């Protein structure tokens, strides 16, 4: 009887122990490397983290990447990583922004001129560009693409800007004039984002059967739930790419992605957690491509119509109570920096001073809470699937409870969260990420769901805010004195009314093999593989 008793136990323990030890063998004690090489905000324009010391590009090879979410043709313009993969390599845009500035660079448009009244933008187009089907690219394709983008059913971020283009002059094949309803300061944001579509194959675009563009790679196939396959476009106007092809695998589980990278099965992954990024970096065997300039920010939103959050003093208390440094270090492992405003340093609306208006000050927070009196429990919603949101929510809850604001966590799923965001239906607070601060400042104030002055997720309505947002938008130039004045007003409102409270900002990171070089990217996270190559 003795052996029967003890053996199952012992063997089981042995099994578990072996599994644990061997799982630990491949790792590195990354915990100490907290702020090591992580957030390098001072990187310069040319340094896209894939600069190589190793000289000449080699031709050939297929780049394999992995990401969690699949392509969804009806909402292609919302730009998740898979859609960005296609948009970045299969399509070109009229202009491109460099990672760290808002100066438009020529792409399909060679030169451009804005009329004096700011209501007409004329662009000279390249005449040596063909679609992957062989058809020449002309001004009519520009009109078609912008009109498609403006269609509300496509739920595009810059839809409002696209709708401001009320007329086109496509009489000349290599020149297009956009007639604007009013001067539009973020018109170049639109042109840096709209992929130039082939009007003949739009039906196939809608069903995801074929994506025809002018870009350095041609679409080969999409197996839903499985992978996207691209091959090199040898006749690309910018010169044939070095790579033979590129593939994107859909791998829902973040840890599996990390395993695939470690096993050499893929060359780059989009969705490693920051904890994994830390240990990948510490191992010295991988490179971290920080997509500088694509800017994401974590924020706490507040539904100002809810009873408990009506009082701006409570929102102020929250702004003082949250420990941004902790979130930046513990959740984002040093890859993020605390902020109060959504603008990166090169944005015309950026203000270093204003960006540190609210720092951790529990005394002030407690004082404000004391003034209010009895604070009922505030719900804090977040997407359960996202480890960043979940961990941040728990830290925020602890911070707020320490100053006397009781918080109840409300985990939701993506579908519910999207609905609540678009409809302004959050019961109280919520924590999630937003982007688009990296574009012209008016973009946030007129198009982003959390910020839109007309109708936003916080249900914040203010004539002053709408006025400032419109003034910022309807200026012909993003840096004109009137525009800068409008940005200042917007910043003041953001900091005073606090209908959302910025926490930290960061750039997404792609963990990759050190053999990958020459990758660039747009501000929308779209990797541009035109000059990328794999050394061996």
């Amino acid at each position, binding site marked *: *009887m003795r052996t*029967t*008793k003890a053996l*199952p*136990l012992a063997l*089981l323990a042995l099994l*578990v122990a072996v599994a*644990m030890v061997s*799982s*630990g063998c*491949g*790792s*590195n*004690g*990354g*915990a100490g490397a*907290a702020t090591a090489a992580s957030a390098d905000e001072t990187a310069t324009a040319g340094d896209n983290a894939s600069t190589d010391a190793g000289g000449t590009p080699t031709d050939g090879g297929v780049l394999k990447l992995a990401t969690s979410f699949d392509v969804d043709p009806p909402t292609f313009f919302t730009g998740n990583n898979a859609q960005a993969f296609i948009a970045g390599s299969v399509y070109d845009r009229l202009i491109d922004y460099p990672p760290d500035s808002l100066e438009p660079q020529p792409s399909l448009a060679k030169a451009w001129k804005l009329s004096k009244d700011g209501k007409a933008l004329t662009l000279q187009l390249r005449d040596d560009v063909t679609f992957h089907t062989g058809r020449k690219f002309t001004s009519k394709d520009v009109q078609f693409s912008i009109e498609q983008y403006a269609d509300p059913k496509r739920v595009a971020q810059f839809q409002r800007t696209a709708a401001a283009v009320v007329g086109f002059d496509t009489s000349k094949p290599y020149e297009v004039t956009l007639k604007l309803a009013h001067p539009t300061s973020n018109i170049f944001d639109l042109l840096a984002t709209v992929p130039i579509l082939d009007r003949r194959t739009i039906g196939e675009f809608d069903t995801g059967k074929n994506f025809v563009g002018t870009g350095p790679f041609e679409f080969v196939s999409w197996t839903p739930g499985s992978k996207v396959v691209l091959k090199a476009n040898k006749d690309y106007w910018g010169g044939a790419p070095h790579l033979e092809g590129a593939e994107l695998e859909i791998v829902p589980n973040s*840890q599996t992605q*990390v395993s695939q990278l470690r096993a050499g099965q893929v060359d780059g992954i989009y969705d490693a*957690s920051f*904890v*994994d990024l*830390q*240990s990948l970096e510490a191992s010295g065997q991988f490179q971290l491509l920080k997509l500088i300039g694509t800017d994401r920010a974590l924020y706490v939103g507040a539904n100002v119509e809810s009873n408990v959050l009506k009082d701006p003093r409570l929102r102020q208390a929250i702004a003082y109570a949250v420990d941004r440094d902790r979130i930046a*270090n*513990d*959740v984002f492992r040093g890859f993020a920096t605390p902020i109060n405003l959504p603008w990166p340093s090169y944005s015309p609306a950026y203000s270093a001073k204003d960006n540190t208006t609210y720092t951790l000050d529990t005394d002030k927070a407690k004082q404000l809470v004391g003034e209010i009196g009895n604070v009922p429990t505030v719900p804090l919603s977040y997407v*359960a*699937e996202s*480890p960043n949101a*979940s*961990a941040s*929510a*728990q*830290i925020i*809850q*602890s911070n707020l409870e320490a100053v006397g604001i009781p918080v109840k*966590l409300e*985990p*939701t*799923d993506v579908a519910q969260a999207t609905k609540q965001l678009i409809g302004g239906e959050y019961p109280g607070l919520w924590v999630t990420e937003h982007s688009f601060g990296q574009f012209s400042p008016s973009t946030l104030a007129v198009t982003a769901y959390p910020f839109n002055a007309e109708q936003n997720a916080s249900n914040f309505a203010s004539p002053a805010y709408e006025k400032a947002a419109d003034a910022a938008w309807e200026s012909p130039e993003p840096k004109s004195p009137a525009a800068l004045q409008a940005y200042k007003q917007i910043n003041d409102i953001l900091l005073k009314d606090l209908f959302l409270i910025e926490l930290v900002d960061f750039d997404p990171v792609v963990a990759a093999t050190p053999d990958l070089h020459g990758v660039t990217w747009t501000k929308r996270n779209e990797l541009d593989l035109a000059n990328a190559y794999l050394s061996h």
Partner: protein
Amino acid sequence: MSGALAAAAAPRRPSQARAALLRGQGLVGLVLVGIVVLAGLLAPVLAPYGPNEQLADGNLLESTAGHLLGTDEVSRDVLSRLLYGIRVDLLVIFIAVPIGAAIGSLVGLLASTWGFADVIAQRTFDLILAFPALILAITLATIMGPGVVTVSVVIIAAEIPIFGRLVRTSVLSVRELPYVEASTVVGASRWWVLRRHVLPNSLESLTVQLAVSMSVAVFVEGAMSFLGIGVRPPTPSLGTLINDGMRNIYVAKVQVVGPLVAVVMLVLGFLLISQSLGKARRG
């Protein structure tokens, strides 16, 4: 099923089951389960910190003197979370499973006694069984939201047909036996037959199934947490702790060992208990 027939040949007394539990495998099983249960019940006494206390000591630490199982990414002591996390699973195991078992057994009993109820009950059982537990879980979570209550409802729903079928089979097989038929002929009422003959015989296969179901319940709770529809943060549970530990496996290996060992002990314990009761039944 033939085992049930053989065992029902002569009624076993509860004392024999008890005797089986206190020897050999059964004892080991009891001890394993007992350790985990005790650890959970004594959590307020044993745990060095609160389960949701975020400490200034440090983030994602490995095992140290102050934190035997390290800390997690929100700077909480993992050992304390483990002890309190066991409590959530105890709730699920010792409340949800028995409730499901009770409802299922009752329905099974009723079904086997009255003919027309039988057909309805059988189809209902098949209906519930037709939906794999995890898919049922995802669907329920979409309607009810995630949380301990949802987890419990899923487990209760999953247990009902299992126990219902078990009891029904048991009752039907006992009813066929000569001495039971004889007692009916002599004038014993349905209830008397149930109480005197059916119940004692079913009891042992019920307890075996109870043990198995409890170990499955632990698994379901963990799987739901993996899918993000289980116990709500910041409340710890064995499932959420295992998931957190797996996520941080490269950085803080020790985090996952604690809850995993607790789960293994629970499951192994229940299985040993069920095995020893099964042996006793067979004689």
